[in-house]
């Protein structure tokens, strides 16, 4: 691994100042499980993806660590570790979909140092992108090697010139929960809905989020779940559950259901598209219907928009099965309680 300079600011203002000074050569660092142990160690670089020479460690910035939850919702600092989120009583009781996803990320060692912000901003999965000898479009090259190469793990939805998959387990849950990101920069703060936060290759080929190089995700704001909200999340790995692996497919479902009838909600897919993919076609097919009755046909709607490649058709069946399984699981668990000032 090449050398780099480590900066340790103690405020958000200091961190964004450093990011603005060093531009694309600087990267925020928290747990470093993907940035240092993945991207930098494996020399994943290219014309459009310079090697980071300045790492801005935001793990010790107090404003970015911790969970505040109550009747107004939850605010989670971007540098909060995954284990803290998984073990938070408030998250487990009121936003169980987030807790479940945090509990299933990688291994306990990685969850102990990996953070919310790091999980959301980890670079995509695609073995051509991750291999240093393939100068792919995502790194500023000319070709997507997955189109003609072995594309068994690539996207079946939303790919365009590039067929990466978004690996974050937590991103799907935040989109499903209708959460917002608070972003800081030297020019001031702004809030972005997670619906608009992630960029697919159809918008930008080098970035996966709307963040500019001088911007930093500071915290995530999660709204209070409406009454009768059901939540569930699950992923399927290639290997068995005890082994660390990225999701072949994951599904987060947050839905309001009264007497078995779908009122509103979101079904978000991970591991099958370049961004957390909202399965709006399935949601529309379920709207106003008895969920158990309409589910099989609603799930099949995903076939109308999927564009699988030579080796990844299996993901289509996988995601159909998983949507059905997660929605039924959420139904059977019953609604989550509404947050109160007394605490969980």
């Amino acid at each position, binding site marked *: 691994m090449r050398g780099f300079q480590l900066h340790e600011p103690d405020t958000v203002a200091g961190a964004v100042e450093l990011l603005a000074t060093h*531009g694309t050569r600087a990267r925020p660092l928290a747990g470093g499980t993907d940035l240092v142990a993945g991207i930098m160690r494996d020399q994943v670089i290219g*014309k*459009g993806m310079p090697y980071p020479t300045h790492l801005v460690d935001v793990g010790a910035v107090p404003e970015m660590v911790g969970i505040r939850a109550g009747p107004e919702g939850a605010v989670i600092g971007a540098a909060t570790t995954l284990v803290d989120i998984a073990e938070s009583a408030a998250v487990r009781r009121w936003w169980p979909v987030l807790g479940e996803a945090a509990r299933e990320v990688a291994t306990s060692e990685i969850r102990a140092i990996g953070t919310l912000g790091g999980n959301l901003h980890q670079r995509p999965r695609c073995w051509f992108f991750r291999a240093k*000898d393939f100068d792919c479009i995502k790194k*500023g090259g*000319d070709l997507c090697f997955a189109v003609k190469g072995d594309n068994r793990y690539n996207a079946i939805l939303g790919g365009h*010139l590039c067929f990466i998959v978004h690996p974050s387990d937590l991103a799907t849950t935040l989109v499903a929960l209708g959460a917002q990101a608070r972003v800081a920069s030297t020019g001031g703060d702004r809030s972005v809905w997670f619906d608009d936060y992630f960029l697919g*290759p159809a918008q*930008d080929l080098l970035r996966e989020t709307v963040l500019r190089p001088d911007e930093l995700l500071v915290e995530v704001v999660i709204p209070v779940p409406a009454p009768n909200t059901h939540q569930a999340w699950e992923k399927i790995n290639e290997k068995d559950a005890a082994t660390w692996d990225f999701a072949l497919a994951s599904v987060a479902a947050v839905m309001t259901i009264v007497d078995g009838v779908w009122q509103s909600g979101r079904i978000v897919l991970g591991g099958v598209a370049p961004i957390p993919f909202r399965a709006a076609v399935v949601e529309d097919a379920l709207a106003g219907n008895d969920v158990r009755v309409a589910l099989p046909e609603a799930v099949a709607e995903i076939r109308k928009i999927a564009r699988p490649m030579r080796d990844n058709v299996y993901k289509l069946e996988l995601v159909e099965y998983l949507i059905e399984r997660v929605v039924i699981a959420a139904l059977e668990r019953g609604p989550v309680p509404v947050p109160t000032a007394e605490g969980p």
Partner: protein
Amino acid sequence: MSSPLSGDLRHADGLLVVVCGYRDGMLANSWFRAYRRLKRTVKLGGFKARVELAPVTDLPPNIDVLAVPPSLADVAHATPGVLECLVTPAEGLQQAFDQLVERLVREGPLEYGPTPGPAVAVHRGFQALTERARLFD
């Protein structure tokens, strides 16, 4: 367009080097597609030219034409050694390039090159044993 390109090109062999620049770390899909169209235009037209894509902070030397979106106009004009800048949104790049090529062919600096042979790349595993054959390189 600024400082119209005329007379001799930078390369002794008469190769026109066109670079499509983008802001470091941000590459709009539309700009990439416009770049690929230019590349195809050059290849199919058989022009003695090479089109490249590069971030404006890391441009190759000896550029004849630098194409950038309007947000990078200042950067493009401040880049030393560029003979001509095409400042245009992605949708207008092809048209601007076609006009430039037409003018350069008419005025002389741009010529038709030899018919390119097949591109061959030899690998052992991930290791490239030969460079992918490039047009006129």
